């Protein structure tokens, strides 16, 4: 869980950095995918890096979900009879929503790929002009809302995920525990802010 989550976490950070180029105008934004495809071109051929990354991410995703399902099934086995009365949340909200949050993120991912990677669901759908696709998307409030819900869910997922991964990998100890929790929260907030900046800019007209 921790390792595959970590891989996807790195991707999310990269993705966010790319997204933020939207603030620098159409050229900068449309350049980004081209640049990505050109990484290691000499060795991997055009777009080779992107495909390697896609395979790696897919693998991480599958393993991550497999582990999640296994944990969920173990949890169900471990408590065959449920409590009749249970106080809802004692630990953090993020921790309690990991499973459903993961499902929401997975569903969003499917939509997101069909929308902006394949272009099937996009109002513009011009793969050569991602800037146009994105701005066309977010002018619709319901697209922005869906996106925002998914990002906030991702934020929660990352907040618990980062901390939990550090705990699982044994990096946490008494003195560091509070710091690490703070780091996890900070990272999650930063990622949320970074991703939400795009629809916010489009909706407020900062980006046209």
């Amino acid at each position, binding site marked *: 869980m921790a390792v595959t989550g970590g891989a996807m976490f790195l991707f999310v950070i990269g993705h966010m950095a790319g997204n933020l180029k939207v603030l620098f105008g159409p050229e900068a934004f449309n350049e980004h995918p081209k640049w990505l495809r050109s990484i290691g071109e000499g060795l991997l051929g055009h777009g080779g890096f992107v495909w390697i990354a896609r395979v790696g991410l897919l693998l991480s995703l599958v393993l991550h979900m497999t582990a999640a399902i296994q944990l969920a099934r173990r949890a169900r*086995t*471990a408590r065959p009879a449920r*409590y*009749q*009365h249970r106080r809802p949340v004692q*630990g953090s909200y993020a921790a309690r929503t990991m499973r459903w949050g993961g499902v929401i993120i997975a569903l969003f991912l499917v939509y997101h790929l069909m929308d902006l990677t394949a272009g099937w669901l996009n109002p513009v759908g011009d793969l050569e002009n991602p800037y146009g696709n994105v701005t066309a998307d977010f002018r619709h409030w319901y697209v922005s809302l869906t996106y925002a819900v998914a990002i906030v869910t991702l934020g929660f997922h990352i907040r618990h995920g980062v901390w939990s991964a550090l705990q699982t990998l044994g990096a*946490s100890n008494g003195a560091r525990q509070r710091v690490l929790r703070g780091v996890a929260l900070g990272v999650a907030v930063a990622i949320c802010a970074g991703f939400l900046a795009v629809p916010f800019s489009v909706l407020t007209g900062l980006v046209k």
Partner: protein
Amino acid sequence: MRLTLRVWRQAGPDEDGRLVDYAVDDVSPDMSFLEMLDVLNERLVLDGEEPIAFDHDCREGICGMCGMMINGVAHGPERATTTCQLHMRHFSDGDVVVIEPWRARAFPVIRDLVVDRGAFDRIIEAGGYITAPTGSAPDAHAIPIPKPDADKAFEAAACIGCGACVAACPNGSGMLFTAAKATHLGLLPQGQPERHSRAVDMLATHDALDFGGCTNAGECAPACPKGIPLESIARLNRDVLRATVSGAHKPR
């Protein structure tokens, strides 16, 4: 004060159980929770009913025998308090109190609120000790131990094995219990030779006993009557990871 208790009654391990309501009058705020159940039980006996079975022994919060879900919280509303040390002054007149046993496959119900926690003994048997046969010890001052290490080890050693961590965990995991022992012994110089094998063996036994996996949900530590910190789990994970990476120890 007057309370309504909604208590899980189950006649035996293979019987179906259900919540049954009991009205209890004249509850004194100075009573402990278990003394209130004593009073109810005496009444039930005289009324020709079966008293409620619950585990308890020392009644001073140290033996770890008592424990029940009180209004959905392991050991009830007071932090760092076992059920036997919970006093009725923390409840108010007219309260409805739901009382259930610990629920986990590894802790099958024997009767009413009594569960079998033998799985914890199996985990300790798998490696929760230092091999030091009687008579083999060097002088107690042969190995000085820095006070902070000794204090930290003590903090983890305070675990009473009550099972509240498992009961509170949404995954039904026993990692806090397992980690407390691994931390206690792993922090002491005497515990170093078996540190990694201990962690690996205890965890393997934990998993084999149908405890759930840890997702660091963090429900266990607040429920722990002895305040065993969550970081113990990280320590256990670290020892297991190190043993796994180095390939030094395979579970027995």
